[in-house]
């Protein structure tokens, strides 16, 4: 093997192994990965948590006459990893606007006024087959789904209003169900007309802004 080839091989080995090691170290210590797309190639978080509730996304369109339609691919859903349609894997809701726009653009329908995005959740124990469920729980499988409005969108998928997801809403309900916390949050420092900008005294000709939108929470 020529000297040049050896040198290039050594460099490639060094870079590649460093790249892999950086991913493992950064993931273990939780540094340097936030917002980095390439980190997806070196962070091995294949098992980062599963909830006790199963969830599906339903999209319902309403036309100007008050008729409702399922916004589901009329040409057949694509099931990427099992028997569940692609839209249900969209945990971050990045696909949602594009999906709504694509389905409505490529299907025949009346003019759509609003599109509702509804989350359906149910406890996972009801996923057991009937025989197993009867054996372990000794009670009827009376699965009840809970529906939760997540967003209201326009016909092109543009979100008009959005709401916390079901899990977040339950946590907020549990925390807010506390008169003392309610009282304290209502007595918090008001945002309007109370915040002072230090540079406002000297400037007036230039537009100053911070990169962040203020103190952020967890």
């Amino acid at each position, binding site marked *: 093997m020529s000297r040049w080839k050896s040198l290039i091989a050594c460099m490639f080995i060094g870079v590649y192994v460093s790249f*892999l090691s950086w991913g*493992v170290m950064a993931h273990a210590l939780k540094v340097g990965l936030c917002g980095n797309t390439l980190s997806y190639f070196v962070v*091995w978080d294949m098992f980062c948590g599963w909830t006790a509730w199963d969830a599906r996304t339903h999209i319902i369109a309403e036309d100007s006459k008050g008729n409702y*339609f399922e916004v589901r691919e009329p040409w057949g859903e694509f099931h990427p990893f*099992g028997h*569940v349609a692609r839209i249900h894997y969209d945990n971050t809701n990045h696909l949602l606007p594009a999906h709504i726009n694509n389905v409505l653009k490529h299907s*025949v329908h009346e003019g759509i006024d609003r599109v509702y995005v509804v989350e359906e959740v149910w406890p996972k124990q009801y*996923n057991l087959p009937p025989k197993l469920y009867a054996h372990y729980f000794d009670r009827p499988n009376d699965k009840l789904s809970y529906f939760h409005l997540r967003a209201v969108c326009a016909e092109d998928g543009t979100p008009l209003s959005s709401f916390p997801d079901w899990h977040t809403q339950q946590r907020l309900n549990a925390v807010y169900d506390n008169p003392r916390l309610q009282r304290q949050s209502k007595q918090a420092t008001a945002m309007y007309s109370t915040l002072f900008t230090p540079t406002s005294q000297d400037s007036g000709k230039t537009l100053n802004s911070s990169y962040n939108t203020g103190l952020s929470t967890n």
Partner: protein
Amino acid sequence: MNLPATNSLPKTQLGRFFFLREVPFGVAMVRMMLPLAAGTPMFMRFPHVRELYTSDGAPVQMFELFGHGSVLPVLPPNLAVPLYSLLLLSLITAIIGFRTRLSLCIATTLYIYFNFLDGVGTMTKYSVIASHLLLLLSISNCGAVWSIDAFLKKRSATGAEVVPSSFPVWPARLMQLLFAHVYFGAAITKIQTDSFFSGEQMRYWMLSNWNYENPVGEVMAMWAPMLLISAYMSVVWEMMFPFLVWRPMGRLFVLGLGATFHFMTWLTLGLYIFPAICVSGYFAFASERDVLIVRNFVRRVGVARFAKWPAAIGQRTLNRIPRAVPAGVVWTCMAAFCAIAATEAELRLDIYGTNTAEGGYRLKPMDSTVARTMIDRQQQNIREQDKFFNFEIGTQTVGELLANRRTEFTFGELMLAQANLNPPHEDMWIECLLKDEENRTIEQFGQFVTREMLRANFTYKIGNKLVPGNYQMVLKSANQEIYHRKFLLSGTPGTESSVSSVLTN
């Protein structure tokens, strides 16, 4: 087989680890298996190429999921479909080893591109591992053996017998190091995941329907000790993997465990492609010596003549190819043909139905009452029973989870009644009542269950307050009876009195 003598052997151990020369049998086997495993889901996505990867569909790039917007160009269907067909062709020609390096370079680039285009329905960790392996294959010499390229090279060689060339092993080493990092990183993830070592996370994954059928997993999900043991075993194996895999006996052990682990993910979680990709990558650990051992064994057991059939059939087929036709021209013609055929096929599939009478398919109407019920913003109150996963009685715990479900008890035993909760739940007050068969309450215990708790335990020492007969433990929450667990009490009451105590987590 006569192998060329290794000259200029690296002097250091690290040098020998990366630059020892061997015939690349291992990476050749990876070359034949990996594109098959990685290509199967890509073949399945062909009918939906327009929808998933083109400007006439709904692609969502990985960059968007990480907050960087659309970085990659999204092509129109008339460009994306031929490129997709080129990806599929490259994977096939990589398997058979025809223009291997070109095929692998094209396959790697297009595989990463199309996976990046669909961060929701295509890109996943198995595609990441496959991308790494494809990249390393494309810089290796995996086409030097067991390939059409090797046959064509042999055919064009004149004079002395052609023996497989040996090459530095560093591409195979990098594949091995990749697996070491993957498993170690996966162990870190599991250690950082709440409730992994108590079995709840495994249980909820096995009860999910996000992958294919997993009947074994559904049974295992209800047996807590099995979940706990497998959780610890998997983490210990993943941590030990990098330290044992390069030792002679350790290699067989950890790779065998790995194959078992991935087989179990298929059985218990319904994963198909992930285990296939990982196991195909395991062939990178096969050395030249391993292949010679297998070859000698095959000869010894007398099946060598059957093993020669694939090579004989391949040789007869390839001998029909005129020598004058350059392989590059053949490959290019194949690519052009595939691109044209794929474009025509995709147009005929007409996924959106634009060639129908109406110019598309109609949306399915919904019942107004059903729709309004689903849309209504008024919060549904969660039923009390849905806040609980289960309620069981027994006597033994393993890792804080009840390990044995019992329906019969004797005097003197310490009964444990355990309620498992479904998070998220609010702070609750729950009760456990001991009732007889006539529904009369004998004992009552209660405790607070705060929102972060996943289970609540009640213990009861069965003493002389009871008589033999049928009883039931009843779980109550918000004054509603949620679960009834019947049991038979047998034996003779002793002198010990019943003592009940409430244990919190």
